[in-house]
């Protein structure tokens, strides 16, 4: 990090009392139209434009990962070979995992919505380090290209977990792939660092920790995980790279190494990483629910505290991935009981969201439908997580399709659903347009049905004992696989419908007002789309962002007050 050598423009006159901090559409071009040409996008420092760059990037990787998933599901239609051979299948599921985890789920909500919304919710003019933010994007792109290049130039067949010693001795190209993931990790750290510093140092005057909007709380918790855990992943992957590339034998039993230690270091990152994926999703939901229930959250404190609780306790549970991996019974028991704490924190959130609906005025727009999908899938998926953390049951289920179904319930049913909720909820704010509600409703319902059809059979497969990462399988599993594949194609179509509807609205949708949902959260104070620096001058945001006893005009008056 270097000190800023160049300022963007002259600092605004921040203390002139007569300026109304809340912008209007007459002020000048909004952030989308403030600069013209490709260069103004590729060299931008505006967090909102960088968010859109990330938006484009993660949608591409999401499509790519989805295509891989459909290819995998097609292969699994028959017990033997359907469309590809075993090596291709192994490379394909590795590619699917790596793409979805590191190139979609981890950057999706934080880098798109976090980047866009967090500074506005804090009343800041930008993130603390705008240049670092842009660097983070380019580092991400470079990392993604290295991964995909490595995969297409031969590819790794290790699974996204890179377990040693298989990853050391795999005849495939492991080194470029781990290098790419390492680079993407650098981007993650930069982004997390930027968010943490912004939340600490750039809050608008008057904003206490207890009035930070809940989405920002969630992104803050995630950023802590990103900054603290990602370097450990970087180290684990670097060691695998050294083992594979130079034969250093760091985990090689032939020279006294212990491959289980790799799993410890790997899961120290990769378990908290699932909270990197789900916490932002919870943040989105925590914004959507009060807005559409027109009601303050049943307990702001419970949601904020459980966010940080999950972020912290999430670090103490990594051993539950290793109950059958030959770790000591004592360590396993310790990790088992700590895993239950995470479940408690998640349950508190779920009950708080549900109770928020009570005595509200609930509107069933598309984001709210996604919330219901999220609620059901997340609760069911989360409860199966409790089952998996129960050690004696884990011995039967671990590394079976039960685990596959469990984490897809959380990752797809939770994170992707919340991503879609956020995409619809903030669409007017980001682009100044309104999407077609009818198609969005159909899309949301289709996503839910397709999802259930895909993954509920996988729970049953897991119960029957179908191990994961199997290219061929005994015939008694086939009918459930066929069902799951059918669901996967339905889910793929539903996702295309949902995203296509948004794309259509981007061009042909009607103009959106500043606050179409009648929300009280701070980001709706500014225009849609916002001006380049979000507000004319920094507003005073001391009031409760979920105070629905205020009318919209009263809330705007409070933000104007000095």
């Amino acid at each position, binding site marked *: 990090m270097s000190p800023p050598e160049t300022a963007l423009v002259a600092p605004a006159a921040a203390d002139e009392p007569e300026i109304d901090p809340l912008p209007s559409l007459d002020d000048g071009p909004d952030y989308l139209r403030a600069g013209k040409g490709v260069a103004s996008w590729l060299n931008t420092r505006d967090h909102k434009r960088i968010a859109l760059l990330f938006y484009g990037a993660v949608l591409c990787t999401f499509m790519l990962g989805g295509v891989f998933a459909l290819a995998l599901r097609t292969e699994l239609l028959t017990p033997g070979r359907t469309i590809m051979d075993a090596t291709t299948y192994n490379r394909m599921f590795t590619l699917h995992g790596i793409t979805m985890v590191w190139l979609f789920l981890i950057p999706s909500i934080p880098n798109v919505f976090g980047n866009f919304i967090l500074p506005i919710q804090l009343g800041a003019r930008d993130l603390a380090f705008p240049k670092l933010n842009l660097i983070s994007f380019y580092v991400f792109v470079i990392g993604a290209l290295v991964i995909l290049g490595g995969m297409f130039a031969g590819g790794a067949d*290790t699974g996204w977990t890179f*377990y040693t010693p298989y990853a050391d001795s795999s005849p495939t190209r492991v080194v470029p792939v781990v290098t790419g993931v390492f680079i993407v990790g650098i981007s993650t750290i930069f982004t997390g660092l930027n968010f943490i510093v912004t939340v600490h140092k750039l809050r608008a005057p008057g904003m206490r920790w207890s009035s930070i909007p809940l989405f920002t709380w969630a992104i803050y918790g995630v950023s802590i995980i990103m900054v603290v855990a990602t370097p450990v992943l970087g180290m684990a992957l670097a060691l695998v790279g050294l083992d594979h590339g130079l034969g250093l034998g760091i985990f090689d*039993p032939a020279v006294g190494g*212990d491959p289980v230690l790799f799993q410890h270091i790997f899961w120290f990152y990769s378990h908290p990483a699932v909270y990197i994926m789900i916490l932002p999703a919870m943040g989105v939901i925590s914004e959507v629910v009060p807005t559409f229930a027109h009601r303050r959250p049943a307990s702001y404190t419970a949601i904020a505290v459980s966010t940080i609780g999950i972020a912290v306790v999430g670090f103490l549970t990594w051993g539950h991935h290793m109950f059958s991996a030959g770790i000591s019974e004592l360590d396993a028991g310790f990790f088992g009981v700590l895993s239950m704490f995470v479940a408690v924190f998640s349950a508190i959130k779920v009950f708080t969201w549900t109770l928020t609906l009570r*005595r509200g005025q609930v509107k069933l727009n598309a984001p709210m439908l996604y919330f219901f999908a999220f609620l059901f899938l997340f609760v069911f998926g989360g409860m199966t997580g409790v089952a998996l953390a129960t050690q004696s049951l884990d011995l039967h289920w671990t590394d079976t399709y039960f685990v596959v179904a469990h984490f897809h319930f959380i990752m797809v049913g939770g994170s992707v659903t919340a991503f879609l909720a956020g995409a619809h909820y903030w669409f007017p704010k980001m682009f100044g347009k309104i999407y077609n509600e009818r198609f969005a409703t159909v899309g949301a319902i289709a996503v839910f049905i397709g999802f259930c059809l895909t993954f509920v059979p996988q729970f049953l497969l897991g119960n029957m004992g179908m191990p994961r990462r199997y290219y061929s*399988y005994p015939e008694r599993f086939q009918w459930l696989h066929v069902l799951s594949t059918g669901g996967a194609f339905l889910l793929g179509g539903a996702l295309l419908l949902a995203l296509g509807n948004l794309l259509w609205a981007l061009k042909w949708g009607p103009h959106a007002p500043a606050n179409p949902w009648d929300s009280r959260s701070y980001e709706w104070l500014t225009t849609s789309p916002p001006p380049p620096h979000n507000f004319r001058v920094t507003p005073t945001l001391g009031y409760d962002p979920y105070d629905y006893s205020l009318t919209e005009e009263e809330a705007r008056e409070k933000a104007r007050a000095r």
Partner: protein
Amino acid sequence: MNDPASVNDWLRTMLFLPPQASTMAESIDHLHMLVILTTMAGSAAVGLMAVFFVIKYRHKGPQKAERDRAPTTPPRVEWALALGLFGLFFGLWVIGFMQFVRLRVAPPDSYDIYVTAKQWMWKFAYQEGAHSITTLYVPAGRPVKLIMTSRDVIHSFYVPDFRIKEDVIPGRYTTLWFEVKEPGVHDILCAEYCGTNHSTMRGQVVALDAADFARFLGRGLDRTATAAPFRQEPEVATSLGPSAPMSLVRLGQQVAAQQGCLRCHTLDGTPHIGPTWAGLWGATVPLKGGGRVLVDEAYLTESMMDPMARIRDGYQPVMPTYLGRLRPAETAALIELIKSLAEVRGQEPMQATLPHADETMPAGAIGQPPPQPAQPLLQHAPAPPGEPAAASQGLPPPGAVVMPAPAGHVTVGPNGPVAPNGPVGGAPPPGQPPPLVEEAP
């Protein structure tokens, strides 16, 4: 439905759980059912509550200001919820952990079987000297403890019908125990991703009643006259500072082990990543993309130095080049080794092989993890002259590299290696599975 057994069966069918073949399976399933029912009840409760609120409080008419400003749930409700849930989860954990400890600690009177995993097969060795590949024979109604290690990467021994799974780790021993209730056949699956053919690394557990099991072991002991198949483990541990000059064939074995050839090629005809070396020499093999080639010095040398030049049909182009990694003498030694195996017939991997318990082959065969020093078999093992006794090493390290295979199971004759006590090649396939295997339940 008042009968607990029928409730159990009904729920097991509803949840698609496999048969409860081990003594622990039923109690694990009961916890499973409890947890799943709680899960479904929990998500249904939350879902219904949400639906109820939506119907009751749905938006009508113009948006009004919030009706009351106080938080809807007082903190004590949150606390009660948190504590109650934690109590529930903690209770599950206590039951689960107690079961877990029971699953991990074998009873003292268990029958020990050694398991070696390698890409992509399971090998089982019994205390009496019998051993088998892919099919594990166990006595029903008696606790069996598996002592497992891997020769290459991590595998996981999984029998869904027993509800057990444990990773098999190179360089370490892990254990697993179970007691099968009745004679029958059950699937073994590898549950930890281990490479290209991970999904075909399957096997079977055949549970026999006590008499049949004794007969199985006895057959193993009786068949001393039959040739043991040539096994692939070279005598790496004894390769240090040999005082006597080494034959090229033996040097070839050493090189093959050092250079990792044996990770992909077998010496006994077992199918693996690369073509087996047994019976390879002098054969005419088909090539990928058409054509055939006679396996001679030229083709073998080319395959070591430029493996991609001509690939045998049916194999992946995965072999690295050894150009610059093999000295000429080592290349020659490898070729001599392959020559010496020209007459070795391959064996079918699915067959149980029952080696003899001859003194020249103590602890038998390889593929069997080295027994514990306390076992009498090893103590009787005579060390061949000029080579350190395997027994002096204590419990030898498992794993692919330092495999202190007991010396002497391959004697090098003037015409290459000869499996002890038997004609090489032409012998009838060694050992058929006992007849009771077919008696599926």
